[in-house]
């Protein structure tokens, strides 16, 4: 790792964990915590979508896994009395397992075909949540407890959120930490041999197979990791809002995840993070425009697309990219 890169990472961590909270305390814009927590979680989900892009698949089904992860966590907590911190990995793993079952047949599809099936998948998840008894239909699951204490051998690592005087800050720090971890994993994947293989898959599946890459397995693996991220993010969202409904994640959320990736740039690991920040935060700031909010937002998005069709991060491309 070069010195400048180390410095960049340090500055980023400082910004996320120190400067942002300090800024919020100074200005008293406590609402930013919620916004930024959402950005962090959405970018975790978007990271998964980005990974499927990286193997050459357009994934518009991430909302389904966020919803699934949310329900898994909610049901385990309310009906099984399981600690939130345990439900978190379980939600991710459950999503990964389901995605393997779904992925094996549908990952054979390419291009818009895969995209359309995943889009339908989001709708299937919503309708399933409406129909099943365990998800409590349209009424959803409410009054979900806040995350409890996480301790190992009596040593409290994370205190019970209900006892905290500022759970907003706690949620923010937790989401931010998860985001940092997620992108660390993603960065590692992309810059390891696994990433090279994913790229080979994205560029030419047949050739990839003929040099001995088990393309079917690699696709499923990438999709499972992607869905794992989706499930994690969904579970934390549920913990924050303390409720989940079939419409908690819908088709437009899935489309948004895809847009975050596009806007940040599909060729850059940190593209989805930047894309999420710009679009979600931008949307939030635009609320002052009232009825013109959506118009300005979508207009800007289209304009960006025209000016920078390869993502915002392509601005820095001349300097050699930030891969």
């Amino acid at each position, binding site marked *: 790792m070069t010195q400048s890169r180390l410095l960049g990472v340090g500055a980023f961590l400082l910004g996320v964990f120190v400067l942002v909270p300090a800024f919020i305390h100074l200005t008293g814009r406590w609402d930013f915590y919620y916004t930024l927590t959402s950005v962090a979680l959405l970018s975790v989900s978007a990271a998964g979508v980005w990974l499927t892009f990286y193997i050459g698949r357009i994934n518009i089904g991430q909302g389904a896994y966020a919803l699934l992860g949310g329900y898994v966590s909610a049901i385990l907590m309310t009906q099984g009395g399981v600690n939130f911190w345990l439900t978190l990995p379980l939600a991710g793993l459950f999503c990964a397992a389901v995605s393997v079952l779904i992925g094996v047949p549908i990952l054979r599809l390419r291009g818009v075909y895969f995209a359309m099936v995943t889009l339908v998948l989001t709708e299937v998840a919503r309708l399933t949540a409406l129909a099943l008894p365990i998800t409590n239909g349209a009424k959803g699951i409410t009054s979900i407890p806040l995350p409890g204490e996480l301790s190992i051998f009596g040593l409290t690592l994370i205190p019970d959120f209900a006892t905290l005087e500022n759970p907003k800050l706690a949620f923010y720090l937790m989401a931010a930490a998860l985001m940092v971890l997620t992108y660390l994993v993603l960065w*590692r*994947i992309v810059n*390891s*041999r*696994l990433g*090279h*293989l994913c*790229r*080979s898959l994205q*560029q*030419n599946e*047949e*050739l990839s*197979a*003929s*040099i*001995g*890459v*088990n*393309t*079917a397995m690699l696709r499923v*693996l990438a999709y499972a990791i992607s869905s794992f991220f989706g499930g994690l993010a969904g579970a934390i969202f549920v913990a924050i809002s303390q409720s989940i409904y079939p419409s908690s994640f819908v088709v437009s959320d899935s489309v948004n995840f895809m847009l975050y990736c596009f806007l940040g740039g599909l060729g850059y690991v940190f593209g989805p993070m930047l894309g999420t920040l710009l679009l979600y935060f931008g949307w939030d700031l635009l609320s002052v425009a009232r009825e013109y909010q959506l118009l300005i937002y979508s207009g800007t998005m289209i304009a960006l697309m025209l000016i920078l069709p390869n993502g915002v991060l392509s601005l820095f491309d001349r300097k050699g990219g930030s891969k």
Partner: protein
Amino acid sequence: MTAPILQIKGVTKRYGGLTANSDITFDVAPREILSVIGPNGAGKSTLFKQIAGFVTPTTGEVLFKGNRISGMPPHKVARLGVVRTFQETTIFKSMTVRENVIVAHHLRSKASLLGFFFGSGQARSDEEDFARSADDIIDFLGLQAIRNEMASNLPQGHLRALGMAIGLATHPDVILLDEPFAGMNHDETMRMVGLVRRLRDERGLTVLLVEHDMPAVMKISDRIVCINFGEKIAEGTPAEIQANPRVIEAYLGSEDAAIGM
């Protein structure tokens, strides 16, 4: 003849009512250069796909070193040592020449994917091996000057060589070359002919090629198999093939250029 390295036994492929090829049988000896010729649409490309695992024969089988490989997925066939290069120059476009060749070493990696993720010692030594071997292949094919070029910027001739480099990186026993001379001028063709010979002479490969360029085929091949309308109509040395009336008829009866020698 020594024990064949590759055996094509009664291979047939039907798509619905269409027969792409039918009952094709021949053997390939180790370190042999064998060309499959035939007019357009004769079923040559299908045959390659059947050997490399992209298409499963409807009936018949392909044996490699006595083991059945037909019906296996392409990555397993490649793992065993039979690799195919493509008719369209297929490469990974957004990688440099060197990256292309390094990635293609995938088969030889001993470290697990998790090992790569965490950067284990095995993974690192793998990467070093691959880089060394990739440079070796690049030198062998004379691509030193363009090793850091983006593949998408290469001219046709270099692309074809890169495609071959990718194939070589898997360290195969048998390499299938799909029309290696297509679109080349005389000088380029002669250079490629030399290269294909060196694959066999210096690297010990068995070479199977599908080709239209008759002068090149006649020059390079130990033996030739001629296919027409999906069926094998002749097999033999270049001299035998040139004298075979059925071959001549097949070529005269088609739109292809006459069998120029």
